[in-house]
């Protein structure tokens, strides 16, 4: 009965956590999420700049880059899974039809309310700074950013 199985599983020293096998037979993965030092790949400087430009969010510090490297090393554990022939899953509701509303306008006409949410408006326009200037490279940014 289950009670006997429970004694075996739940009292095993170190728990059953290490015993399960993925298809690749990799070792148990601990809950901590910390990669061993040798697993941490370096992210090259040009990728860092590229990411900052794409995300329009800066790293801000060396620690943040180190955190990214740890995050990447953590994600690298997925390589051990055998996914040959497996289709990517985008939605758990993939077997259902997406609901589409009838194409009738039922709401809107609230331009004033929406404009009130924004900091800078002029008449019915959101005001943005000029758009055709690329973000300066890292060292130049000091001139542009508020300290």
């Amino acid at each position: 009965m289950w009670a006997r199985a429970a004694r075996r599983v739940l009292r095993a020293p170190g728990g059953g956590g290490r015993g399960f096998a993925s298809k690749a037979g990799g070792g148990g993965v601990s809950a901590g999420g910390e990669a061993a030092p040798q697993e941490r790949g370096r992210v090259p400087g040009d990728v860092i700049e590229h990411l900052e430009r794409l995300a329009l969010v800066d790293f801000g510090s060396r620690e943040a880059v180190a955190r990214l490297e740890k995050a990447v090393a953590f994600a690298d554990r997925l390589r051990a899974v055998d996914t040959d022939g497996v289709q990517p899953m985008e939605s758990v509701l993939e077997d259902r039809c997406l609901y589409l509303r009838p194409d009738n306008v039922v709401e809107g006409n609230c331009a004033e309310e929406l404009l009130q949410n924004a900091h800078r408006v002029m008449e019915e326009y959101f005001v943005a700074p000029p758009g055709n200037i690329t973000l300066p490279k890292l060292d130049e940014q000091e001139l542009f950013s508020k300290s």
Partner: protein
Amino acid sequence: MGKTNLDEFAMGSGSTDGVFGPVKNPWSYSKQYREKKKQKPHGENEDTNWLITGGSSGGSAAAVSAFTCFAALGSDTGGSTRNPAALCGVVGLKPTYGLVSRHGLIPLVNSMDVPGILTRCVDDAATVLGVLAGHDCKDSTTVQDPVKSFILPSLTDVSKLCIGIPKEYLVPELSSEVQSLWSKAAKLFESEGAKVIEVSLPHTSYSIVCYHVLCTSEVASNMARFDGLEYGHRCDINVSTEAMYAATRREGFNDVVRGRILSGNFFLLKENYENYFIKAQKVRRLIANDFVNVFNSGVDVLLTPTTLSEAVPYVEFIKEDNRTRSAQGDIFTQAVNMAGLPAVSVPMALSNQGLPIGLQFIGRAFCDQQLLTVAKWFEKQVQFPIIQLQEIMGDCSSVFENDLASVSLKQ
């Protein structure tokens, strides 16, 4: 009634990274906890060793736990409702994905988010679910099946139930107290006639990694809308749109959020897309299939721990960074989000330190009613104690015990 505190953008498992500061677990001030710590009941107002609520919906859990309200809403993307529910001794329900509308919920991971429900008892959670569930034309990911509100039956006979215990959830980091309560719960079902079997969810160990990749990737996309132009914080830089966006986002997002955006963008780079994002989507299917296989083999409900341990002191929790803590906090809960299944954390008992420990039940998709029925039976069996906050509440405590434990009792 009001809004509650949380980790910024629901990213975290401690409710410690919010712009209004961290959330304190009401159990830090409970008689049950203080007696075990041998603290003097009055005075000695050294509030330095208070405990976290878990997260990210910690404010909501704390509010329900401290009798501020009957019910509170949270969000659940990787366990953010169930985690604080377990640490605050309340019921935390994550409905099936597609059952409750996400309209109005700031999106974190569109394919996994659901609004979560926090209450002091399972009946209340069912009541709130009955109100919220159903198709919403403003959220096209809600299913169109008709949903009726329901009253949970009071199960007396569990002999037709099959409870599955996933063996891969027994990880080395699981505290011995939670482990022993999990075992006790399984034996309880068995002794009352239910069939209790060990099952396998083989890809469990990769679940948290897969979640990490998918979550950060969707976050990178979802957070892109916060540019300060149409709403939200905006900084004063006016040199160019890009400079303005960058500075606004630096000012407006904390380190955790920025870290996830950057990680997500990394995984979505052309050279990484196939190896990280698509790979994670494939692993997600394997994980979802693991659950399907188990439920197809006759299991009605799975029983697992919700958290690795009881609530820890804030000063301990902040020793590690958010990503590490999230990976630990979400370990038992995030696989459910990837598969879109319903799950509920039910408080079971107090630890040796007088703090709540909850267990998680996982059900089949769209079988939320059956899941809650089993949870209600379990809740009745374990009789989890009411929090005793007399020292703070003064004479009101007896009122709380009798009248305000549950809205359902008033009927």
